């Protein structure tokens, strides 16, 4: 059953559910945050429109810095700006920031403890036809291992809007990943969002498995949960939008209750959300676990849907993983 207390989109499982790119929510959230806080500044590396920073840049040209195609400079300049009391939001494609400028982020932003908000758009294989060079599927791994960094993956546009406003108010270096393509709108204005607090989107009376995911693939998780319920397999689908700090209490409690976990993310199966969950559960409450993610491969060109199916990230693959993990109990 959908969790009614979270006031999710009523059409969430309908065929004609509204579809909006996650990155649009960031664009709206940035404008709101910037209206409320004059210390917010924006920097972009020649991708202002496609990372949805354009509305901000048009409204506040004096608070916008065009960096050109120079992602390493993007990171270090934002760190300098942060040292003068600004809250910099820096945008590019995830493959280039944080892909290209990792060490600059580590040293000048995190080591220096500067509240820079790194926004990586066009993450995941669902980028589609641009191909493997542009499909960031290692970004969560490289960001979550840096001390002080917080890591957030909104599941849809409304959540990205809320997350943008939330991260604007913390003093932490933060990485937020966005997706390019239109994806189902799962949440509403009223759905809660708090950094570090995972929430249930779905729960059956009997819980045989916990499906813990982040990002737009949660829609596939919900479709799988519905299909599994018809087979008599009960589940909880947990939206773990914050990968760091991970909601350890909720995840451990749920693992204990369900006795089996499937993680779901549009990322390498290694090193991302699934890895973070496994690290925690091995210490608190080990249970059988399966990982939905790309299995040590690069992406390629194709439609988003072709690639999600090919790399076994879709509802059918999630349902298979659930059946498998339950047998291991």
């Amino acid at each position, binding site marked *: 059953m959908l969790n009614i207390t979270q006031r999710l989109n009523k059409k969430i499982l309908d065929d004609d559910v509204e579809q909006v790119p996650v990155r649009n929510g960031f664009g709206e959230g940035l404008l709101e945050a910037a209206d409320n806080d004059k210390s917010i500044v924006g920097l972009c590396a020649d991708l202002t429109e496609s990372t949805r920073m354009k509305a901000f840049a048009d409204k506040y040209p004096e608070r916008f810095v065009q960096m050109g195609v120079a992602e390493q400079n993007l990171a270090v300049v934002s760190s300098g700006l942060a040292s003068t009391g600004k809250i910099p939001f820096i945008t590019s494609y995830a493959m280039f920031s944080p892909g290209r400028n990792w060490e600059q982020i580590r040293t000048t932003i995190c080591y220096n403890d500067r509240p820079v908000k790194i926004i990586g758009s066009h993450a995941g294989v669902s980028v*589609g036809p641009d191909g493997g*060079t542009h499909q960031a599927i290692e970004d969560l791994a490289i960001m979550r291992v840096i001390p002080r960094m917080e890591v957030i993956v909104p599941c849809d546009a409304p959540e990205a809007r809320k997350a943008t406003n939330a991260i604007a108010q913390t003093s932490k270096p933060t990485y937020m990943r966005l997706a390019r393509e239109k994806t189902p709108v799962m949440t509403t204005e009223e759905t809660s969002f708090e950094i570090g607090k995972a929430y249930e989107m779905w729960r059956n009376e009997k819980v045989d498995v916990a499906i813990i995911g982040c990002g737009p693939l949660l829609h596939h998780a919900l479709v799988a949960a519905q299909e599994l319920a018809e087979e008599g397999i009960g589940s909880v689908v947990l939206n773990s939008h914050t990968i760091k700090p991970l909601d350890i209490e909720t995840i451990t409690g749920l693992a204990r209750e369900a006795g089996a976990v499937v993680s779901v993310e549009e990322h390498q199966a290694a090193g991302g959300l699934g890895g973070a969950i496994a690290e925690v559960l091995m210490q608190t409450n080990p249970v059988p676990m399966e990982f939905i993610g790309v299995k040590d491969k690069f992406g390629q060109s194709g*439609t988003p849907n072709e690639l999600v199916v090919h790399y076994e990230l879709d509802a059918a693959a999630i349902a298979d993983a659930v059946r498998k993990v339950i047998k291991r109990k």
Partner: protein
Amino acid sequence: MLLEAGSGHTAGPLGMADIFTLLYFHIMNHDPKNPSWEDRDRIVLSNGHICPVQYATMARAGYFSVEELKTLRKFHSRLQGHPHREYLPALEISSGPLGSGLGQAVGMAIGERMDKGRNTDKYIYALLSDGEMDCGIIWESAMLAGRDKLQNLIAIIDRNGIQIDGYTWDIMPLEPLKAKWESFGWHVIEVDGHNFRALDEAIGEAQSVNDKPSVLIAHTIPGKGVHEFERDYHWHGKPPKKEEADMALRELRTLGGRVVSEHE
């Protein structure tokens, strides 16, 4: 190609069509039937997003069928949205993320020299874009090539004046570009990127310089040959719609209405 693909880059590839034609059909020593021939010259495409023009030229040169061009950007196609050697081994490098092609070409030039000595006549042609000049790593590679006097390295910059967010002079002015490259130890030639004779001479001059790497700053028109697309940065990364594609092909095949096309 782009119409079939439904996404991709229009301006850069059209602007570089003349240079690709000259390289593949006149300048380069290569064998389409044996792409890994050891003594080939190499084309290293750094600004991978303009790969449609490389694919199209390679097809015409006999690397694969012209029919295959329609698979651009499709699932499992050898013609990936950005060049990928795993899918098409005839490519020298995979690229897409900007700035990394020059350094790879520098490595190839150094390797050549280690094997064949200073006077090797195997050339490495590094194709770069002007937007890439924003990337710091371009200048790291340029400095190294200048220091090591890599005379068998010839870079060609697509100086078309556009990048994604606008014109290069608004986003990140590059001039004086010639002086910049000269100060890094390169022999620099400014050339009209649509004049075959001038390009041919410039490349000949670059080959004859034996104590420096050379760079051609090729002044090109983005979207060249199609009035609607020319010099407009909005065409950097979008494909034409059906009517636009028909109009563009007609204009290209008739040289803007000046000749009769056999396709009509």
